[in-house]
């Protein structure tokens, strides 16, 4: 059986406010799925119901086919999770906290010791193994929390914005860790609003807005959703670009739908079509020998889709 998580008609209401509205989503297999959405979309609410921290108003959440609501102990057995930024008892050390967590999961002592070493190495916290958690910074605690979620080498990993509280280096390390997790037969379900993070580590994405699932698909299919759409690229040159060249030559290229100058050396071009057209435009600009310094999409394909879908939801 492949690791899986499934939401069936999962709904959560807080009074008259519907935080999650009949979510139906099944994810299975070894992969990393990004759970995207703006603040207040219902991401954390969903993950909390998958870990039984809150209870659905309707519907059920399943992990490996076992209902979290009916049998949390069995359902969470295969699951490692990190929801928000949890605190571990401050007078315990990471070693003791992991001994407790491992023992509660039924791991053998030698297994706990070995895994503790491995996961703390992964989050670069080995030297803090015997220091009390109460003295740790938020970032350090988050690293330990990530390590704790991985302690039992779980088949299903649920991460709620794991980069929260980490510095840029820490964020990069989290991405490396998640990429490393994908090497095993493991399902990773990760909420985030950092699109670059999702593009970097996830194979598939599900987009949630105002409690409703807008789409769930592979990243490549999401990019294809942009077929026919106009995408913006930014081009930078070593010296100021002549107005005549910009208007008469660059603006006249068949791939360019519109252009604007953001600085004397930098322009933004609206490109008709997809990656092929972008590549052709790059070749044309390079052939002009104007001192092209950089050429990149101003927003990623995922970001384009994200903003488009969210704005549709806004009625824009």
């Amino acid at each position: 059986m492949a690791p899986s998580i499934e939401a069936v008609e999962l709904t959560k209401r807080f009074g008259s406010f519907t935080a999650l509205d009949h979510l139906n989503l099944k994810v299975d297999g070894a992969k990393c799925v990004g759970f995207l959405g703006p603040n207040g979309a219902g991401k954390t609410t969903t993950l909390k119901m998958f870990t039984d921290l809150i209870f659905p108003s309707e519907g059920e959440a399943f992990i490996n086919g076992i209902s979290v609501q009916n049998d949390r102990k069995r359902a969470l057995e295969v699951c490692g999770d990190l929801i928000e930024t949890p605190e571990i008892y401050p007078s315990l050390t990471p070693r003791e906290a992991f001994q407790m967590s491992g023992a509660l999961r039924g791991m053998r002592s030698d297994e706990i010791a070995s895994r503790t070493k491995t996961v703390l190495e992964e989050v670069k916290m080995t030297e803090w193994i015997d220091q009390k958690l109460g003295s740790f910074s938020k970032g350090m605690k988050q690293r330990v929390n990530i390590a704790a979620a991985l302690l039992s080498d779980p088949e299903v990993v649920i991460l709620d914005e794991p980069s929260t509280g980490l510095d840029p280096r820490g964020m990069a390390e989290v991405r490396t860790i998640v990429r490393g997790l994908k090497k095993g037969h493991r399902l990773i379900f990760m909420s985030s609003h950092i699109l670059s993070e999702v593009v970097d580590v996830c194979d598939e994405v599900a987009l949630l807005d105002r409690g409703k699932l807008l789409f769930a698909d592979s990243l490549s299919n999401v990019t294809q959703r942009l077929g026919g759409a106009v995408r913006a690229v930014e081009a930078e040159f070593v010296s100021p670009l002549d107005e005549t060249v910009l208007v008469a030559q660059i603006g006249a290229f068949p791939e360019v739908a519109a252009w604007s100058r953001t600085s004397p050396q930098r322009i933004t071009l609206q490109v008709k079509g997809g990656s092929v057209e972008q590549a052709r435009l790059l070749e044309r600009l390079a052939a002009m020998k104007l001192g092209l310094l950089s050429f990149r999409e101003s927003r990623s394909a995922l970001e384009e889709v994200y903003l488009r879908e969210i704005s549709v939801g806004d009625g824009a």
Partner: protein
Amino acid sequence: MSADSTFTLPEAAAPLPDGALGKIPSTVSQALILSRYQFRDYLRSRRFILMMGIFLAAGAIITTVVAYYRPSGLIDNANDLYGGLWGGGALFVIVFAGIIFGGDAIAGEFQNKTGYFLMGLPIKRTTVYAGKYLAALAASIVSLLVYLIIVTGNAVYYLGAGAFSVPGPLIESFALTLLYLLALLGFVFLFSSLFKTSAYAVLVVAVLFLFGFSIIQTVVIDLAHTEPWFLLSYVNAINAYPLTGVPGHIVTTRNPFTRATITTYNPTYLEGIIVMAGYWLLTTIGGLFLFEREEFT
């Protein structure tokens, strides 16, 4: 695309490793594991050190006062000495320990977010409740034993070997004190489950046990002229009976000057045991009921 549609993401399935399931310890084992680490957390906490400091200071004051006044009714024999120092003192120790270790036991899981770590593990909420209850019980018993050592130290000083002449009554008294501790912790855990803020839980329980129940007891006796058998703070007095003897259940005396009748109520053994056990049972069920339904929002 409809939000109500079911999306199934395509990808190859991978087999689960053998023996990955079915190794989680039993509920009882998990409760014991959790209580062990929670107890360790209590022992290392500042509040435990502070409480021990208070008990030692109180012990020193009691020792000094007794040494200075040498009240004949207190230091003449072991029954009187233990009855006087242990009987009433242990009840205060329990109230302090219960408030300190139990007041935020459940509320703290929400307020301090430690629950997000704990409840993400494959463990039932009942198990978490039981584990934390056992840890608070163990920490309170440690406090009680420290106080017992102080009292015994006084007894040895005044009575020598005679300090150990009442092992049976002392054990009985200790058992009844434990029953009170169980009931009090049940009560404290109930309030701790009711609030998501530790300070509220601690404050309500402290006010109730340090003042509230005493006021209610006075009102019930003086205004309603009824035995307050339903109050935990009334029935807990039975813990001293094995040492001091059982007083009359309802004692009526007449003031020789005003000729007014004064009625004094004393709980019976049976009354005390049933009410304390009832409190323990009902508050534990109530606390569990609340905790099972509380959300980590």
